[in-house]
Structures are given as C-alpha cells and as structure tokens.
C-alpha cells in the first residue's frame, strides 16, 4: 500500500481528476473531502461491504422462496 503523510488542508491527486482533501483532524477522526467526476462511485467501506454481503445472501434463493413469499404476503394483506 502506498502511504502518504498529509497535513490538514493538503490534498492527494489520483488519476488526474480525483482529489482528496484532508479537511479536519481531531484525535482518531478525520474528515476527508472528495472531488471526483460524476461517474466515479464513492462509498464508505462498511456500507459497500454490507451491500456486497446482502446481495450475495439475496442471490442464495431457496427453492421454496416463492411459496414462502406468497404466505408472508397473504398474512401481510390480512393485517
């Protein structure tokens, strides 16, 4: 991994058009500004990983998923 030291207010330029700015540092907490072209997607890692995990679980469809769903939706409609 490339490791760079930066002070508050300093920037890192990636690939000509992505700029990270260290906005604020307080203890263990760092605020980072990200300027990037609109087609660049940026996510907090924990959200990104949780979504990967959720999609993988969702893809593991059980054979009887459709029956289970129908039962649940019936119940829901009765409420």
């Amino acid at each position: 991994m490339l490791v760079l030291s930066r002070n508050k207010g300093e920037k890192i330029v990636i690939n000509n058009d992505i700029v990270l700015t260290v906005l604020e540092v307080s203890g263990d907490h760092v605020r980072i500004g990200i300027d990037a072209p609109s087609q660049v997607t940026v996510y907090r890692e924990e959200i990104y990983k949780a979504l990967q995990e959720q999609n993988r679980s969702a893809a593991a469809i059980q054979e009887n998923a459709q029956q289970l769903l129908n039962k649940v939706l019936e119940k829901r409609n009765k409420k």
Partner: protein
Amino acid sequence: MIVTSTRFGDIEISQQQVYQFIEPLFGFPELREFVLVSQESGDIFEYLQAAGEPDLTFIVIDPFGLFPDYSFDLKDTWKERLAVDSAEDVEVKVILTVRSQSDITANLKAPLVFNTRTKHAVQIVLENSSYSIQHSLLGEGK
C-alpha cells in the same frame, strides 16, 4: 437471444429487453446484463436473472406497493448516467432476501433503478437515508 436460468430454464427474450447495468451490482462485479422475469401475473414480485450466469437470480419487488411511505430523490448524476428524460421512464425495484418464512427482508437502502426506455439500470445507495439494508417484510424492525 436466449437467457438460461437454472430456476426458469431457457428464457427467450429480445436483445432490447436486456438491461445493461451501468455499474455492477454490489458483490457481482463481472455481470452487467440482466433480464426482469415475471412468472405469474398477479405476483407482486419479479425475478432479476443474470444473463450468462444461470444460477444467479434475485427476487425483486416494487417497493412503493409494499411500503407506501417509501420515497427518495434520484440524484442528477444518476439521471444523467441512466439517460432519464422523464419520470415515466423510471421503474424502481428492491431486492428481497428470503431466508425463511419468518425472515424475509427488503433492501430499501440500495434500490435498483431501471430506465425502461433505454434499458439502463443501476443499484444505487441512499446514503443519507435511514432506510435499512434488511427491512423486514413483516413490518417488525430488524
């Protein structure tokens, strides 16, 4: 073209009906082409079948029918990238995770947005919303 599905067998579909994901679904970076399959009329859920990966099928549902309060603003970036001209082009689905009868959740945090006109699609993340990745279908929070 024929899309082969382990669940549904061979699905014959015109190339124009195939959705191109402009960003891959989270966790499946190599797959960009999917088709929406409705099995029976009257079913409120549909299936999102990966083209070229017969085993990969998601169960999806229109969130607005099931969760009347559900709403979000589609960012301009996504409108541009999906080439959305009017709201009528847009269809929204959420992915369901069916674990058991008592454990079915909808991913309201990361809905799928389809442009039915251009057949572009993407899974977006509502980062600043309080919607859950695992919203219980039975209403009790999870």
